[in-house]
């Protein structure tokens, strides 16, 4: 093997220009793949993280059917107890009870229909990013204060500031008329105009009191330590739910189906583009290897008549392709990795990103993440494709007749 390896390496540099042009194609694609895939991994994680932390969490326990109909009657009974039980049973800190309903919020001059959420201020800080996004004033503090925090656009639309009062009107769980007055204590900037337009949170006990909920709520929200532990957590939650009830555990994909699909759609279109690049590199390798086999016909004829098997020559060709691929991989990953590291520190921005960021809960600079997937996934496929591409030139060796080959021009 040592001899074949040395032969392969030397053969590569018989035509340094050709070899560099072929590896150049690999390096070029590898750099692009490393850069793009790292960027995608970074964007997707931020999209998921930011969206889920701002709204649904990773996992929720709800009454069956609540996620489609969102009726105030579809409740989780004794929601705080359930949250406490889950917290103890799972050994997980990030568990919070919530309730939610539609109400009319009126200030002195304006009224808007909004979705109001009742939260446990202390637990909420552990599952949601919103308590940390207070732009003015403060987040909710006690469980039963008559206080409300709202999004920046809603505050502007309602023409209220910190310290003003809002009247909330809606219907209670039993269908009765519900009304309350709450003081605006904080204004939140969630970085997304849609959320800033609709966001309104009040303390859970105040919510239950106002909307005749008793001790019930609408969901228990949980945040797993990371995305990969969600499904394990989900089955543990299922086991802990009281038997015979109509409660269900839903993961983030079920709660926010758009998010995963948006990512899938993006991956599909990116995959098409990567595939094209890889096919083009494969053609380049195929061409080089075919030429290098054809021009060595006489040489191969000589060594074959000396007793070298076509199989061994085939391995030589394959090894040449692998070596070329490895050079492409190492250099490509090095250059691509350097770019990724640079952008993971300094961030990346391009025209249109800011507008897109608003739509997908992203910051307006992208900080890439250095991950093994991002660095090696693309280049490995390029390497495999190059090896595959040298299979056709290899088969030509088996048709080679030593004597004829030696006579070839």
């Amino acid at each position, binding site marked *: 093997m040592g001899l074949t390896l040395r032969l392969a390496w030397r053969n590569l540099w018989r035509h340094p220009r050709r070899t560099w042009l072929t590896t150049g194609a690999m390096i070029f694609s590898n750099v692009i793949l490393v850069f793009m895939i790292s960027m995608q991994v970074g964007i997707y994680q931020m999209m998921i993280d930011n969206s889920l932390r701002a709204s649904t969490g990773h996992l929720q326990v709800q009454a069956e059917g609540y996620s489609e109909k969102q009726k105030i009657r579809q409740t989780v009974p004794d929601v705080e107890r359930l949250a406490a039980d889950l917290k103890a049973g799972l050994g997980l800190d990030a568990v919070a009870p919530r309730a939610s309903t539609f109400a009319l919020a009126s200030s002195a001059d304006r009224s808007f229909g909004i979705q109001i959420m009742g939260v446990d201020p202390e637990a909420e800080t552990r599952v949601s990013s919103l308590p940390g996004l207070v732009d003015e004033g403060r987040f909710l503090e006690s469980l039963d204060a008559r206080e409300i925090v709202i999004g920046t656009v809603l505050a502007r*639309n309602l023409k209220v500031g910190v310290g003003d009062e809002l009247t909330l009107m809606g219907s209670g769980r039993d269908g009765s008329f519900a009304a309350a007055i709450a003081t605006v204590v904080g204004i939140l900037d969630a970085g997304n105009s849609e959320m800033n337009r609709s966001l309104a949170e009040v303390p859970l006990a105040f919510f239950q009191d106002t909307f005749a909920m008793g001790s019930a709520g609408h969901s228990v929200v949980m945040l797993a330590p990371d995305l990969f532990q969600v499904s394990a957590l989900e089955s543990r939650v299922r086991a802990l739910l009281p038997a015979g009830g109509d409660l269900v555990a839903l993961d983030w994909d079920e709660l926010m189906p758009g998010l995963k699909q948006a990512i899938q759609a993006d991956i599909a279109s990116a995959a098409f583009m990567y595939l094209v690049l890889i096919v083009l590199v494969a053609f380049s390798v195929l061409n080089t290897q075919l030429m290098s086999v054809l021009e060595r016909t006489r040489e191969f004829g000589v060594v074959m008549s000396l007793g070298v098997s076509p199989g061994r020559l085939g391995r030589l060709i394959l090894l040449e392709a692998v070596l070329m691929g490895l050079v492409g991989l190492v250099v490509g990953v090095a250059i691509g990795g350097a770019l990724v590291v640079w952008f993971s520190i300094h961030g990346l921005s391009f025209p249109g990103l800011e507008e897109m960021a608003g739509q997908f809960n992203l910051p307006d600079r992208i900080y890439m993440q250095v991950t093994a997937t991002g660095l090696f996934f693309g280049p490995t496929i390029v390497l495999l494709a190059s090896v595959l591409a040298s299979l056709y030139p290899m088969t030509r060796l088996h048709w080679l007749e030593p004597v004829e080959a030696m006579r070839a021009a």
Partner: protein
Amino acid sequence: MRGSLRVTLRLAWRNLWRNYRRTLIMLAAVVVGVWAMIFMTALMRGMVDDMVKDGIRTLPGHVQVHHPSFQDDPSVANSLDPPTDTLLEVLDRPEVVAWASRIKVPAVVSSERNTRGVVLVGIDPERERDLSFVAGDMAEGRFLEGPEDQGLVVGRRLLERLETDLGKRVVVMSQDRENEIADRGFRVVGVYDSRLQAQEEGFIFAGRATVQRLLQMDDQVSEIAVLGLDYRNVDGLRDRVAAAAGPGVAVQAWPELEPYLGSMLPMMDGFVLVWIVVVFLALAFGLVNTLVMAVFERVREIGLMLALGMTPGHIRSQIVAESTFLLALGLLVGDVLAWLTIRPLEKGIDLSIVGEGLEMFGAASVLYPAFRWEDVVLANVIVLVLGFLASLSPAIRASRYEPVEALTKV
């Protein structure tokens, strides 16, 4: 001179096919590259065009006139007088395809079972037909019949959320000019299906005069929407409308009203260019490689030709011509292939498995690829021009051989 050009071209063409395997492989790479350039561009263009067009149909219009404070505070208090004669004169010109004035206020709609926050739009149904999505998307019942119509048109999804039905009554509540709550019962007379679910849930439509009476706003309106000829080119229309509308109102074109959609078109143009160039570069390595090999194996021949008196210029143009033939052939086949694959897809590609995800981008779940000649020309020109540049280096090398040295090279 003409004769020598013919010789150069014929030599280049024949040289191309001396090593037909290599040429065919390179040709295949060019075809795949060109096909991918045009195909991908058509898909992305189609998606963005639809997003923008859907957005304009929802917005709707290319240019809108509002009270200056309406964007920050969309309430009845920030209303406009109906179009003046000067404005009407501009609106009646042929460059305006359609225009409508309408009321647009936040409202709350309640059925016996449920309550939702929506945007109440008071419209002149006749004017709206050419302008917004709703008239074309009616699924059940009837569309509004005039500004005095007493009925209400709602989206299917809202109807489900409210757990009510066509023909049933709902209560619509909003604020009037005096900031008092105004409410009124409406019968649901029509249901529309929209390509975007958020629309179906968010907009309800009633007659303009009916809404004006409910909100005590006399003949005032919230906005005037104007549809021009081309959504890509709206600045001129905006300026003329702004001049005619006079001071004290805000006149904005759709890219300012919807910055996300507005950013999509230039971003798409950038993407198309980057994509074409990247694919070309991936091809260029192979192209240069092929030419280098072709020159290398012909060193002796080139030396002979030089020794026989062919000028280095001839050699150069021969190599460049060889490369151009290869690219032109690849472009031709790639273009045709792209056209053949896009045509059957123009009826629409169903992407509803990721429909809710596409909706996050603002796109509908059926994708209509847009085959645009500008993009095809762009791709072809880029490939030919950059291809020419890429072939220069091997061509110049070939022309610099010393005849005697080249002749004796093994």
